[in-house]
Structure formats: structure tokens, C-alpha cells
């Protein structure tokens, strides 16, 4: 049913008869889907009203809005019922258009906090103040509409939606100054100017499969850019333009894992060119794009697709890597002297290459595989799945988690040091996994909570978890052909043997890498496996010599706390070592530990592991901040050579894994 605004307005108000747009009333689809068409037939600009404050009485409560001399009568309620995801009937209707300075009151007949008013409009300069919590009299106010010169090229439509099953009544509107407001009806436009050559914004639309953009009156030779975003899930497969300036493009979804229920496409369409700035969008077949979902629910997103990779690179030289060498083919093909053998045809006018499958230019040369798993090694999941429970499960089953923001903005959170700290904490937690002393359990829990907080903080800004196989942890990752250092500035100098670690990210485009590690066992042990194992060996050794569980626990706590500089966290362990108050001195641990080290040297001497190696094994988890050559002096003169070599060994190893340790002791 098509109703002319002018006629309807004349019926309703007897005024504001200047509108010339047509508005197609929503109709009800017997199949149960709502068809809401927001089709404005190129509203004819009308003169700009003089800006001024909104005026008029307070909003009218109740399902039957009452008027006053300044109100407009509400039309008959328009009911459009659609079960929403929560099972509530959801009403959605395009309500009206407000011009500059206008305001409107809406009557929401059903009280309840679930009434929501969704103001769906462009341009975004409109600011809305909505009181939607009350059951009646909710008043959306368009507080600002940019008004300069020219005319509105697009109507501003407001959409009201009730999610509690309430009926919506396009209610009385309160005119601002000028012919600005009508209720329930889209009305014509008023002054809205955009500078020439500025992007024209069309209403944001949710759609699927195709859309047609009319650029009325534009020259077919004008450069046109259609911006589609922010979704990176759409794939533009074609862009054509008809003689009348109509653009058509199609997109499709590739990859697996989604359904219509978990995808939402939001297109911001803008155009730049010498048009008459009279644009409209006609989303076809509205009932085919009932696609509303939280983007966070999207899993296994499609291979990279959407951004303007206007030049497609392919492996022209066949070296298995798509990169700058292959650009030579494009250079030559763009030269008139070299036509005929082009690997790609480039259209300078739009910069787009037609009839080619757009692909994300993968700078790492990795070709995305199907689905979410890459080469059987990389797997992706939504980071939001990370919970305390899952962390706990993972940590105590898997040793290390590294978090990296792929975009290289690590510095925002302390960069490498933050990662290292996190890494260390995790390793520390792991080393404590078998501890049973209450103090250690509490300490472990404290670390876990700290980690969780930190991980979530990072996650909020788009970080990704690289979850490392405990036996293969190797932060110096590379891709399949060994070309890419994933962690960028993180300069770990060790690699771990047999390494493959899995990459987790919320978007496979972001951190798709396959990490195959060469075998370079620099240290002779892995950070994930070696430290705990060595540590445990040391503890076992203590057990062998009969030091007892109590002392073992002391050693465990002592070593771990001192290792990571958490002496300040020793409150719970206060007095564990011979009554010393370790909590009071962050860095004094080592000195306090020195005589104990001598005990260890003595203890280990009878073992077959050599005179100094066991000591190194015990204290190699120390942060080298405390491993100083001065410790040598703490040993008896006849043991200092061994102590020096042990400490040198420790410092070397810690330095190799990134700690700023000193060199050898003599």
C-alpha cells in the first residue's frame, strides 16, 4: 500500500503539506516475516527551516495519544509483529522523519522497561536523546541536525522498536520550528548540506546477497567508491554500473561456520563523485535478510575478502610466495607496450580488476585453507570464550599461554615486558601446579586471578591468545615455510624442539599462521617442560636426601617467588624460610637465600649429577635480577669455583630466554 505523505499529512494535520516523498507502508507477510521497506522516492528538497529550539508540550502518555492544539493527531496504530530472538513479538516500524531542530514525542502504550526506541537514521550527525524506559511518553529528540545549505539528500527515518510485545503507536510529533515533524510518516527533507565531493551517506542497511545503489544523475565517468563496512565478512564479487548511474554489486559468504542466524552485514554505503547527491538505496527482498546477531557469535569467519585490494597479486613467478616479485607482472601489464600478456587487467578508472576473484593479499604468503583450521595446526576460537575456568583448565593442563596483539601495539600494555611477565606468571603457575601447601595454593590462585584480569584486559583491545602446546612452546614462531616471525619485536633467543603451536584468534584473517618450528634446542630444555622438570628433579633430589616435605615446600615457594620478583607477594609465605620476613624486601630474597644455597650445594654434592649442576637446576628459575656474581662470595672458598660456574650457567640460560642477565662469574 502506498500512501502519499502529502495526502496523509493532509488527513492528519491539515498542515505540513509540502512533503513530496512517498512512503510505502509496511505490510505483513503471511509467512510471518515482516517486510519493511524503507523506500523514499527521491524526496524533493524543500527550503531549510530556520533552526530553533524544539517546542511543544510534554509527550503524551497512553496508547491513545491525545493531542493539543500543537500536537498532531496520531494515525491509526500500525502493528507489525515479529517474534524476535527472545520470543517476544517485536514491533518495528519506520516512524517519521525529522528535520532540523525538530522534536517528536512518542507514545509507548505498554509500560515497561523493555521498551526500546531505536533511532535508525543518517546522517550520523543526528544526536538522539531518548527516554525509552518509561512506558509512555518516551521522547526521542533530535537535538542536532547539521544544517548548512543545500538540501537533504536523504530522509532521516526513525525506527521505533518494542521488544516487550507492546504495540507501537506512531504518536504525536511536536514540530520544531518550521515544517519539521510529522508523526509516523516519512516526510520530506529539509536543509542539509554536505560539501561537494564529501561522501554522501546512505542509510545503513542490513541486507544479504545484493543491493542496488542509485546514484541519480551521476556521470558514468565519475569515479565512484562504495565503502562497505565495517564487516570484513563480505565478499564483493562484482561491481557494475549502468548507463543511468546505477551501481550494482553482489557479495557472498565463503567459508564455513555461519548461518543466517549468526551473521549480520552492515553496510555503510557512501559515494564520492559528481552526482547530484540524490542517492537512495533499495534493499531488495527485505525478508531475505533477517540477519541479526551479535557479531561476537561469529566463528570461523571467511577468508579475508573485503578491503580494497584493488590489485590482485598472484604467484606470477611461481616461487610459492605472493609478493613484490609478482608485482612486476602487474607493472608490465599496466603498460600499453605490454598488453596481451597481462596477469591481470587493471581498470584505471576504478582501480578494480574485473572478473577476478578478489583475495586478501596475504603478506605472509599463507593461503587460507578451508574452514577454521589451518593445515591441521592452527585453530581459531573466539577469545571471549576465555573464562577463569577455562584458563584454569588450560593452564594446569597446558603450560604456557602467550598473548599478543597482532597489530603490534603491544606497547599499549607494556609490550614485551607485559608478555614476558604474563608468560612468566603462567610458567610460575605451572610450576606450582603440584604444590599442596595452602600458602602455595593461595599464591597460585592469586596469580591465576591476576592473569585472568590481564588476559581479559588484553582481549578487550583485540588481542589473541597463542596457546602453546606445553611440549612445543616456542614464541619465535614462523609460518609454514619458515618466513615469518610472529611475535615481532619479542626477541626470544631460544626455540623449542618439535614445535608446533596453535594459534587462536577471533578472526582468522588476523593471526592465521602455521607455526612450524625448526629444531633448535638451544638450552637443552624447553621453558615449558624444562624448568618445571628441572625444578622437580631438584625437589626430588631434596626428597632423596630426606629434607622432608616441609623443606620442599619452602624451596618451592622460595624459588618461585624469588624467580619472578614477587617477593612482595610473600605475605602468605612470611616466615617460611627460617623465620625471615621475606615480604618486606623485594630484592633481598637472593641475599637471604645465599646461605641456603650453600646448604644446597652441600646437599647436592653426594649426588651423581655433578658438583654444580644440581644447584644450577634449582636456582635456574631465578630471575637474574638476583643472580649476581656477588653470590659467589657467599660460598666457602673451596666451593666458589663451582658456585661461580653454577651462577654463570644460570645467568647464561636466563639471558638466553630473554632476561637481562649479566655474564659469567669468576
Amino acid at each position, binding site marked *: 500500500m502506498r500512501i502519499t505523505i502529502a495526502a496523509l499529512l493532509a488527513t492528519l494535520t491539515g498542515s505540513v503539506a509540502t512533503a513530496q516523498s512517498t512512503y510505502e507502508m509496511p505490510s505483513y507477510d503471511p509467512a510471518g516475516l515482516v517486510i519493511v521497506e524503507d523506500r523514499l522516492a527521491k524526496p524533493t528538497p524543500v527550503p531549510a527551516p530556520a533552526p530553533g529550539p524544539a517546542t511543544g508540550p510534554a509527550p503524551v502518555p497512553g496508547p491513545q495519544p491525545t493531542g493539543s492544539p500543537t500536537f498532531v493527531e496520531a494515525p491509526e496504530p500500525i502493528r507489525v509483529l515479529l517474534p524476535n530472538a527472545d520470543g517476544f513479538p517485536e514491533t518495528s516500524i519506520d516512524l517519521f522523519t525529522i528535520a532540523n531542530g525538530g522534536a517528536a514525542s512518542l507514545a509507548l502504550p505498554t509500560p515497561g522497561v523493555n521498551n526500546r526506541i531505536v533511532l535508525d537514521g543518517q546522517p550520523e550527525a543526528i544526536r538522539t536523546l531518548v527516554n525509552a524506559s518509561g512506558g509512555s511518553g518516551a521522547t526521542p529528540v533530535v537535538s542536532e541536525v547539521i544544517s548548512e545549505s543545500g538540501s537533504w539528500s536523504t530522509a532521516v527515518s526513525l525506527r521505533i522498536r518494542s521488544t516487550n510485545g507492546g504495540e507501537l503507536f506512531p504518536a504525536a510529533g511536536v514540530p520544531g520550528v518550521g515544517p519539521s515533524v510529522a508523526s509516523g510518516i516519512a516526510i520530506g527533507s529539509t536543509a542539509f548540506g554536505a560539501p561537494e565531493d564529501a561522501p554522501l551517506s546512505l542509510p545503513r542497511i542490513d541486507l544479504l546477497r545484493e543491493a542496488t545503489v542509485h546514484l541519480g544523475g551521476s556521470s558514468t565517468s565519475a569515479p565512484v567508491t562504495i565503502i562497505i*563496512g565495517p564487516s570484513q565478512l563480505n565478499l564483493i564479487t562484482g561491481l557494475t554500473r549502468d548507463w543511468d548511474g546505477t551501481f550494482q554489486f553482489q557479495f557472498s559468504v565463503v567459508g564455513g561456520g555461519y548461518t543466517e542466524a549468526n551473521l549480520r552485514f552492515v553496510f555503510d554505503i557512501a559515494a564520492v563523485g559528481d552526482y547530484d547527491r540524490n542517492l537512495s538505496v533499495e534493499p531488495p527482498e527485505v525478508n531475505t535478510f533477517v540477519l541479526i546477531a551479535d557479531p561476537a557469535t561469529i566463528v570461523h569467519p571467511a577468508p579475508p575478502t573485503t*578491503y580494497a585490494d584493488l590489485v590482485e597479486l598472484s604467484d606470477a613467478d611461481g616461487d610459492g610466495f605472493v609478493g613484490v616479485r609478482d608485482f612486476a607482472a602487474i607493472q608490465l601489464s599496466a603498460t600499453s607496450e605490454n598488453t596481451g600478456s597481462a596477469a591481470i587487467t587493471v581498470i584505471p578508472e576504478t582501480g578494480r580488476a574485473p572478473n577476478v576473484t578478489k583475495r586478501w593479499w596475504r603478506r605472509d604468503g599463507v593461503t587460507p585453507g578451508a574452514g577454521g583450521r589451518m593445515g591441521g595446526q592452527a585453530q581459531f576460537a573466539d577469545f571471549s570464550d576465555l573464562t577463569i575456568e577455562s584458563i584454569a583448565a588450560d593452564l594446569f593442563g597446558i603450560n604456557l599461554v602467550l598473548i599478543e596483539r597482532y597489530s603490534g601495539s603491544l606497547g599499549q600494555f607494556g609490550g614485551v615486558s607485559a608478555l614476558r611477565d604474563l608468560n612468566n606468571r603462567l610458567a610460575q603457575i605451572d610450576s606450582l601446579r603440584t604444590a599442596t601447601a595452602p600458602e602455595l595454593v593461595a599464591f597460585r590462585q592469586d596469580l591465576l586471578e591476576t592473569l585472568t584480569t590481564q588476559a581479559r584486559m588484553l582481549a578487550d583491545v583485540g588481542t589473541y591468545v597463542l596457546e602453546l602446546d606445553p611440549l612445543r612452546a616456542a614464541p619465535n614462531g614462523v609460518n609454514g615455510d619458515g618466513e615469518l616471525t610472529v611475535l615481532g619485536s619479542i626477541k626470544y633467543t631460544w626455540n623449542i624442539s618439535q614445535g608446533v603451536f596453535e594459534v587462536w584468534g577471533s578472526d582468522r584473517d588476523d593471526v592465521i599462521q602455521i607455526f612450524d618450528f625448526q629444531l633448535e634446542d638451544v638450552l637443552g630444555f624447553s621453558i615449558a617442560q624444562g624448568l618445571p622438570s628441572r625444578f622437580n628433579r631438584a625437589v626430588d633430589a631434596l626428597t632423596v636426601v630426606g629434607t622432608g616435605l616441609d623443606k620442599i615446600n619452602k624451596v618451592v615457594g622460595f624459588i618461585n617467588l624469588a624467580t619472578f620478583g614477587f617477593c612482595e607477594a610473600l605475605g602468605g609465605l612470611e616466615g617460611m624460610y627460617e623465620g625471615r620476613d621475606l615480604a618486606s624486601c623485594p630484592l633481598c630474597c637472593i641475599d637471604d637465600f645465599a646461605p641456603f644455597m650453600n646448604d644446597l650445594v652441600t646437599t647436592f654434592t653426594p649426588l651423581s649429577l655433578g658438583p654444580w649442576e644440581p644447584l644450577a637446576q634449582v636456582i635456574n628459575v631465578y630471575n*637474574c635480577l638476583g643472580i649476581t656474581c656477588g653470590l659467589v662470595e657467599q660460598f666457602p672458598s673451596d666451593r666458589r669455583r663451582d658456585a661461580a660456574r653454577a651462577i654463570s650457567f644460570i645467568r647464561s640460560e636466563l639471558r638466553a630466554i630473554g632476561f637481562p642477565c649479566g*655474564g659469567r662469574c669468576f
Partner: protein
Amino acid sequence: MRLLHIAALIAACGSASAQVTNDIDLRLELMPTAGTAGVIGGEPVQWNLWVRGNNSHDGLALLVVDLANAPTNSPDIAFAQGERPAPLANFDSPIGFVNLSGVTPIDDPTASQSLFGGRVGLDARKLRDVGGAQNTLGFTVFDGSPVGPEVLRGTTITTGVGKDANEDLYVSGEFLAPLAPGTYSICIERPVATVLVSTFGLTPVVRPAVIGLDQHCVEFEVVCTPDLDGNGVVDVEDMYEYYSLGTVDVNCDGIIDSEDIGFIESIARAGELEDMTNGRR
């Protein structure tokens, strides 16, 4: 097909002499750190790639090479990324076209780094795809989208690079000489180049370049090393070894004195932070 043509030309001219009969000639220059007695293992070796031409064109539009260890190198030299000379900005991101590091970020296209200086593999045995290309397409690849690679964002062209007999520095870098004494060679592999024929009009005219190499491989010899125990690492054990051996010219200054052991120690303690070890060394 065109690339095959290029390859054929390269093959034909791969053993080029120093004559500038080719469109461009490449010369790899190695400048190792050396004492009076020779090159010291573990010390930096500067490398430069120079290009010159025969005036048959208007300069380079693209030049990409690989640097590789010669098969005889043992151990191999570990490469690091080189650096682009400032005048060649049009060959690099964001104006020109180069490989970029990392994965294209969705929300921060500026995060990636140019790999004009080459891609280093895991084993660092090769430095691949050193160089870049100018945007000769006549248009920019930028449609206003907030995402996208930081390449081809400009159309300015630099002419004259490698055009005439005056050598232009195309890229330079540094690596560490192997610790083990011996002769090592660095080779140029897979050179690809295009040159500007005309820069008039919207789209510069580009053609493949015939490339000549001054030398395919350039060698140097490590004479001295602080790695006295030959385990590939300079550490305290080498200091012990020094005292065991007694007389070794570690720093290649032609003299055996206390500076030799000091040279080893300076390397062994290179990672120390002074404020951590002050008074306790």
C-alpha cells in the same frame, strides 16, 4: 611468459662483466670489520647493493634480489633485514609496493612494517625479496576503506635510479661474520628488475630489464675469532680456553696482549646491565 623472458635474460647475463651493456648492473659490496691481521669472527659485516645503468632507460621501476649463503659456507651467515636509502622512498611503502611484515591488521593497517630490506627466513640463511617497486600503475590503491595494505598509496615516480654509470646505492645492511675462521661468500640470487621507459602520461611505460651482475658471489675470510673453544658461542668457556692456550690473537690486531682476553670478556658480558652487576662483577 614475460617473467620467463626476464629469467632468460638474466640467465644470459648472469655472469656479466663490469661492462654496462646491460640495462642495469648490480654490484654487491661487503665491508667486514677487520683488524690489521684480518676479519674478526662475530663482528659486523656491512653490505651494500649498488646499481648502475647504461642510459637506455629512465631508471628502475622495480628491483628485487635475494641474498644467499654460498653452499660452501660453513657455518652459514645469518642475515638480517637491510635498510632502504632515503632517496628511494617511492620504491617502498606506502607509496610504492613492497612486501610487508605480518598479517594485514583489520583495524590498524599501519602496523605492518616494510620488508624492503628483505625477508629473513627462520634459519636466516637467505635474505629474500630485497627491494621494492615504484607505483607505475598510474593510480593509487586506496578507496577510502579504513583497511588495506599500506602500499600503492601514491603515484610519484623517482627517475634516474640505476640509469647511468654512476652507481646508486639501492639497499644496504649488516650481518655478523661467522665465528669460525674460514672463507665465506654471499651471492645474489633471483634478480628481477623493470625499468622506466617513459614517464609521460598517466601510466609510466615499464619494460623488463636486462640485468648484469658485477659478481655473482662476493667472499671474505674470517681470520680471527673469540670463539676459542669452537662451540659457536663466545662465553666464559672461551676465557678459560684463552688461558689454556696462552697465545692467541683474538682481536686480529696482530698483537697478543691483554686486550685479547678483554675482547672475549667484552663479548661474554655484552648483555649485562650495569646497574644490576655494578660492584658485583
